[in-house]
Every structure is written in structure tokens, then in C-alpha cells.
């Protein structure tokens, strides 16, 4: 039993100490038998605190350590490393979660939170007293990674991982790569178009021997665990042969009688059931939209490359890590929201497609556009809706779009109805340029937004403008552009398959936005790009590189040091009934002869430490380090105390 225990209680700035009386916690545990020191600290994770803890372990010859702070998901690795630096075995360290499960969960009840924190820390002390030193178990990790989503973030991550020698399976649900960026014909602050950026990335991954690209594919099942995930991928047919005739395919597109809304152009145009979104799109083959194709056979008459015999495929992959970069959806305004439904009210993504289609004159629905009213924060920073967050990219994107309209067309007047422009960092120069071009900025509070009405054939936007002391100003606009923000994907089934938690904003949630920004609580699954929250392209690329580095660190050595928390059999009391072997899902338990009697034996390299064998043993001869009867029952005793 440990007798020189160091106990450190973190304030976490005020995240803990605003709700938990940390001094009372410290005083309550300092007299417990075996506690050598108990100290409270403002930030236990700070470098100086870590150094102090390690020095205390060494100087005071502590034989066990308890840190009471945030969730172990966040800082268990930090403090177990501190324990090792101080000379302790890391399994003589116990983490007490008094933030997520105490101070935050009971921020409405300070007395209750403090009482609970005291018991949680006492139970950690009781557990660590019984702890024993262990050595990690090495297991093989697959040197392959599944990257989900072939947008810019996914392709960038795939390219980086492939360059590092990792086998990458790049899995894209659509039949074309590029994601949302391929819908952009101009990129702020770059000399290339979105399509050109997609082409550059595609060419790098397409030629790379370490990348296998699946389009029209999605992960439908995930099994296994970090280092050894088993994923099932469903691949839908493209109905086009690999070796196809481009001229015949164009004829097939021409003769297709089915016309549907073109979601690539945000429904402002139509497309055929056999289609490609733009000529240079990758892969170069068109695809047949099986939901809308009527199988009329017209395309087959003019094109020998059509192949309706292609079937859906299910393939199994084994990967060491999964990197999800599944992107976002643009916010879709509700009926009548800022005039949505009026014929000349469009969203920013639609407007950018319109600009792409208009060369010399800006024309929408047969009318030339001169006066444009941009309404900001539609679907972002909502007062009443769910989207409380700022979508980050839209202010800059709108101002850059406005600048482009001035450069491309004559006589444009732009009116920006905003709630405070957020062109952070270098993007401020875009704001400056738009101002110099004569754009008019009108500002309102979130509770008094502009009103869009249709009066005598004109679309009128009215605002009480903060910048002119609350003066009511009206603009008759030829076109109203709703600056819509980002939302999580409507179809987030992949998140359900991978079990990635979501935050309050409904985007996928990282463990910690600063300390572990691309890791999820699902070990081995990382996230990148706008599936994690609104980001511009540069930010998405950066997060993709970060997630790639993290996933790489999991698989690169080909082996992982896993927790040595495995079952162990008491040879003296085991009488081999076989129930443990039946319960074990990994066949890790076999019958052996020892000293003339049959007993169970655990295969340490196969046992995963699930503990399924523990409760079925009638003679209670199986225990697991970290979860022994002594450890669990000592915690129960302490938690039950009045």
C-alpha cells in the first residue's frame, strides 16, 4: 500500500474554483493516512506546475500521485508523463475529474460541488493507495489511415500522410473530389481558383502510389480500436466504364431527357441525370445520378461507355487511424428570413455562382444588377436560432466578392448591412479595399436587424443605422444577397458510425480546442477542416496538417504502447469452469495444467482488458489491475461515506 502520496488540486483558472471550494478540498484530504503533501495550484497543467510536481516526486520520494483537475481524456497523458519524469511508474498515478464531472456539472450548486469534489479526490487517494506499478504492452498498429472526405482538407491530409510513407485510403462520398472548394471560382488572397486548387491537390494524390481513392464511397461500419480499426466501405456504382469515350459521353449528357435541380450551382440552374459539374472536374468521368435516372436507355444508344450492370460493392479495410474531414453545408435560410422567397433574394454561395456565369454584365433572371444589398450574419450569430457561432469566413468572402463585382462589371453599388465586420488578421486589407471602392457600410444590433420587403416591384432593405446615430436608411436593391454561414452537414451519419461527439454548435467536437485540437474522445479518430467548426481554407489546411501529424504519430512506429490493464488469474483459487473463456470475445483465455490442476490462463498479448471475464467467474478468481476488488471497493467505501 502506498504511503507517500502527493495530491494536487487544480483551480483551472476559475473553471473549478469558481464553483468548488478548492481550499476546503485540500484541507479535507491533507490528514488522510498516506498523504504526504496536498497542494492546490492555479493551473496544474502549466509547465511550472508540472515541473514542481515532478520535483516533489523526486525530492520527497513520493510513491503515488493524484491530480484532481479536468477530464482524464484531456490531461491523463500529461500527468502520467509528469509522474514518469519524477521517477514514478505511471500506473501509480490516479486522475480525479473534478471539472467536467463536478464543477461544470454542478455549477448551479457550489455546496454540492464541493462535497462531491472532496469525495472524488478521497476516492482517487483510496484507489492510488492500492495501485501497483505496471509496464505497457506493445501491440502492432496498421500503417494505414482512412481519410474521410476528399475536399481540400482531406486531400491535403492524404497527400501529407502518403509522403510520410503511410498507406492512405481516401474515401469520398460524392463521385467527384474537391468538396465545396470546387464551387469557388475565386479565392480571396490567392492567385488561383478553387477548381485549380482542387486540380493541384488531385494531381498530387492521383499519382501517389500510397493513396487509394474511393469516390461514391462511404464508411458504413466501424469496428476494432486504435491501431487496428476494421471499416466497411460501401461503394456506389458510377455506371460509366473506366475506359470511356469523352465525345460519346458528351452526347450521352446531351440526349439525357431528365433535368433536375443542380445542387452544384445551389439550384439556380438545372442539370441532367448523367452529369459532371464542370469540364475539368476529377475524376474526369461523368456519373449517373441513380436517384433521378429513369433508365430510359437514351444514353446507352449513343454511348458505349454506359454500364448499368455495375453493382454496389462493400469492401473491408483495416486501418490504424481514421481522419474525418467531411466538411460543412451552407446555411439554408428559412422562408421569409430576410426576404428569402422574394425572387431577387439569393444567398452568397448562389451569388458567387451567378458571378461565374455572367461575363460582361451581371444579370439575374433577365435583369441587369447594379445595386446590391448584402445582409450579413444570416444563419450565424443567431439570437433565436441554434447557430450562436460566427461562421468566420463570410465577412471576408463577401467583401472580396463585392470587390470582384466592381472589377468585373461597371456601375455596381454595394451596400453592406452588417453587425460589425470581422475581417480578422490580414483580411483587414480586403475591408479597406472595399471601403476605398466606395462600398457603403450600414450596421445594426443583433436584436434590430435590417428588414427586407418587396414594394412596387423593388426590393427594399431598411435599417436603423448605428453608424449614423440610429438614422433610418432605406436601400432599393436590384439584388439582395444573404451572407449565409456554415452549418454542420445535414447528413452526419458518418459521425454516428464513428461515434464522434458533437459540441453545442453541432459540429464535431475536439477534446480541447487549444491543447488537443484535432483529437476526439474516440481514440485513434482525428478531425480536420470545417466538420469541426467554421473555418476558411487556410485554417482548414492547417487543421488538416495537424490531424495528419496526429494520426501519423499513432501509426508510424507500427506498434502502439497500450495500457497493460489485462485480466489476471488467481492460480490458487481458480478451479476452471470455463465460463471466463466463454465470455472472452478475443479467445484470450485457455485451460492449462498447473501443479496438477486445471486452471485458466490469460494470453497477455491477446487480452484487451475489457473485463468481460471478471463477473462470470464464480470463484472470483479473476481481477484486473486498476480495477481489482480492493481498488473498486475502496473507492465505493469512500464515496459512500456521509
Amino acid at each position, binding site marked *: 500500500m502506498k504511503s507517500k502520496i502527493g495530491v494536487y488540486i487544480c483551480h483551472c483558472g476559475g473553471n473549478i474554483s469558481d464553483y468548488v471550494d478548492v481550499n476546503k478540498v485540500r484541507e479535507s484530504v491533507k490528514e488522510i493516512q498516506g498523504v504526504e503533501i496536498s497542494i492546490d495550484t492555479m493551473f496544474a497543467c502549466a509547465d511550472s506546475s508540472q515541473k514542481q510536481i515532478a520535483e516533489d516526486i523526486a525530492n520527497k520520494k513520493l510513491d503515488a500521485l493524484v491530480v484532481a483537475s479536468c*477530464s*482524464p*481524456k484531456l490531461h491523463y497523458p500529461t500527468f502520467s508523463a509528469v509522474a514518469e519524469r519524477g521517477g514514478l511508474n505511471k500506473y501509480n498515478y490516479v486522475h480525479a*475529474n473534478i*471539472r*467536467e*464531472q*463536478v*464543477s*461544470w*456539472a*454542478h*455549477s*448551479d*450548486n457550489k*455546496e*454540492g*460541488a464541493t*462535497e*462531491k469534489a472532496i*469525495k*472524488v479526490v478521497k*476516492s482517487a487517494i483510496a484507489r492510488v493507495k492500492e495501485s501497483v506499478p505496471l509496464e505497457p504492452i506493445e501491440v502492432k498498429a496498421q500503417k494505414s489511415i482512412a481519410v474521410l472526405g476528399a475536399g481540400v482538407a482531406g486531400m491535403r491530409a492524404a497527400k501529407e500522410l502518403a509522403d510520410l510513407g503511410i498507406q492512405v485510403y481516401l474515401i469520398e462520398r460524392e463521385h467527384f473530389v474537391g468538396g465545396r472548394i470546387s464551387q469557388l471560382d475565386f479565392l480571396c488572397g490567392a492567385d488561383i481558383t478553387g477548381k485549380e486548387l482542387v486540380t493541384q491537390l488531385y494531381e498530387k494524390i492521383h499519382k501517389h502510389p500510397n493513396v487509394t481513392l474511393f469516390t461514391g464511397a462511404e464508411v458504413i461500419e466501424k469496428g*476494432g*480500436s486504435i491501431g487496428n480499426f476494421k471499416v466497411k466501405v460501401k461503394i456506389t456504382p458510377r455506371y460509366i466504364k473506366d475506359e470511356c469515350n469523352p465525345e460519346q459521353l458528351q452526347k450521352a449528357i446531351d440526349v439525357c431527357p431528365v433535368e433536375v435541380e443542380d445542387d452544384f450551382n445551389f439550384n439556380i440552374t438545372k442539370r441532367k441525370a448523367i452529369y459532371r459539374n464542370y469540364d475539368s472536374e476529377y475524376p474526369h468521368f461523368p456519373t449517373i445520378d441513380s436517384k433521378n435516372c429513369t433508365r430510359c436507355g437514351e444514353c446507352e444508344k449513343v454511348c458505349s461507355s454506359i454500364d448499368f450492370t455495375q453493382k454496389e460493392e462493400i469492401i473491408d479495410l483495416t486501418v490504424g487511424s481514421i481522419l474525418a474531414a467531411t466538411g460543412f453545408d451552407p446555411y439554408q435560410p428559412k422562408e421569409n428570413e430576410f426576404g428569402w422567397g422574394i425572387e431577387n433574394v439569393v444567398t452568397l454561395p448562389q451569388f458567387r455562382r451567378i458571378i461565374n456565369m455572367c461575363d460582361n454584365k451581371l444579370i439575374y433572371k433577365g435583369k441587369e444588377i447594379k445595386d446590391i444589398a448584402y445582409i450579413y450574419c444570416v444563419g450565424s450569430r443567431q439570437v433565436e436560432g441554434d447557430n450562436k457561432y460566427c461562421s468566420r469566413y463570410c465577412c471576408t468572402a463577401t467583401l472580396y466578392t463585392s470587390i470582384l463585382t466592381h472589377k468585373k462589371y461597371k456601375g455596381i453599388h454595394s451596400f453592406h448591412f452588417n453587425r460589425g465586420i470581422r475581417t480578422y488578421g490580414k483580411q483587414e486589407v480586403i475591408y479597406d479595399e472595399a471601403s476605398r471602392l466606395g462600398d457603403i457600410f450600414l450596421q445594426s444590433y443583433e436584436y434590430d436587424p435590417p428588414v427586407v420587403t418587396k414594394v412596387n416591384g423593388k426590393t427594399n432593405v431598411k435599417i436603423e443605422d448605428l453608424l449614423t446615430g440610429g438614422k433610418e436608411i432605406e436601400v432599393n436593391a436590384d439584388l439582395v444577397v444573404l451572407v449565409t454561414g456554415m452549418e454542420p452537414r445535414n447528413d452526419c451519419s458518418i459521425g454516428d458510425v464513428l*461515434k464522434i*461527439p*458533437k*459540441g*453545442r454548435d453541432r459540429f464535431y*467536437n475536439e477534446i480541447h480546442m487549444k491543447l488537443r485540437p484535432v483529437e476526439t*474522445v*474516440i*481514440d485513434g479518430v482525428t478531425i480536420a477542416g470545417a466538420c469541426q467548426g467554421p473555418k476558411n481554407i487556410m485554417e482548414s489546411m492547417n487543421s488538416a496538417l495537424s490531424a495528419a501529424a496526429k494520426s501519423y504519430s499513432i501509426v508510424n512506429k507500427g506498434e502502439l504502447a497500450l495500457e497493460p*490493464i489485462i485480466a489476471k488469474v488467481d492460480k490458487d483459487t481458480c478451479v476452471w469452469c470455463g465460463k471466463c473463456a466463454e*465470455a472472452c*470475445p*478475443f479467445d484470450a483465455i485457455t485451460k492449462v495444467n498447473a501443479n496438477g490442476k486445471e486452471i485458466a490462463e490469460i494470453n497477455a498479448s491477446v487480452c*484487451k*482488458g*475489457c*473485463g*468481460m471475464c*471478471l*463477473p462470470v467467474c464464480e470463484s*472470483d478468481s479473476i481481477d*484486473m489491475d486498476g*480495477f481489482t*476488488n480492493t481498488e*473498486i*471497493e475502496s*473507492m*465505493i*467505501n469512500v*464515496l*459512500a461515506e*456521509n
Partner: protein
Amino acid sequence: MNLNGIDLPKILVFSTEKISDPAVDMAGLLKLHYPPRVYTIPIPCSSAVKPRWILKAFEQGFDGVFIAADGTDCPYGESCTDKTGAIVQRTHNMLKEQGIDTARLRMAAICSVCSEAFVKQMKNFTEYLVKQKTT
């Protein structure tokens, strides 16, 4: 600590490190409050809970025990749901023998994103246990 003059019931939760614990953590992150006398002991899998630990909890004075089960999300295999169910069934039988209300041991699947479900379970369970104390 009491609720309307009644001592707030103590609930012990066996929560799994990979599946339900993230949900319990997220409940805190989202400030979804639940009664503070809910104490969590992390375990690798809900099929690893020994009946003797549950009995020990009741013996020591816990009013309720809740197993936050992995359900079909268990990273160790599909058999987890049945196995956890069998543990609960076996323990219910033991509780009956000791004359302990079997409803004081509950189990529900709590996945890694089931924060609201967890909070709802804790509130309902506390209400039930308060009712038992007052009748």
C-alpha cells in the same frame, strides 16, 4: 445535503471509459446539471461490473446503482449488451434474496454523445429514490 428535507439520494454510476464517460464529461461541458450526489467509477466495459461491487455499494449506503452500459457501441464486441443484461439480472436475483428493491439497480445504454440521456436518467433515478425514501 437535502432536497425538501429529504437527504439527497446517493447514486453510484459504473461508467465506461471509452463510451459513457465522454457523455458524462460532455454533460458537464454543456452545463447540463444533475444531482451532485451522483458519483462515477470508471470501468473499461459495462460487462466488467462484478455483482459483488454492486452489493458492496448498497451495503455501504448507496441508495441506487446505475450501470451506464456500452450497448451496441461497445468497442469490445456485440455481446456486451447481453452480458451486461445478464449481470443485472443475476444481481437483481441477489438483491431479491436480500430483500432489496431491485429498481434500485438500473441499467441503460449511454453512448459517447448521450449527455442529455444520462442527465435525464440521473434526474429520474433521483426522483424515484426520493419517492422511496418518503413512502
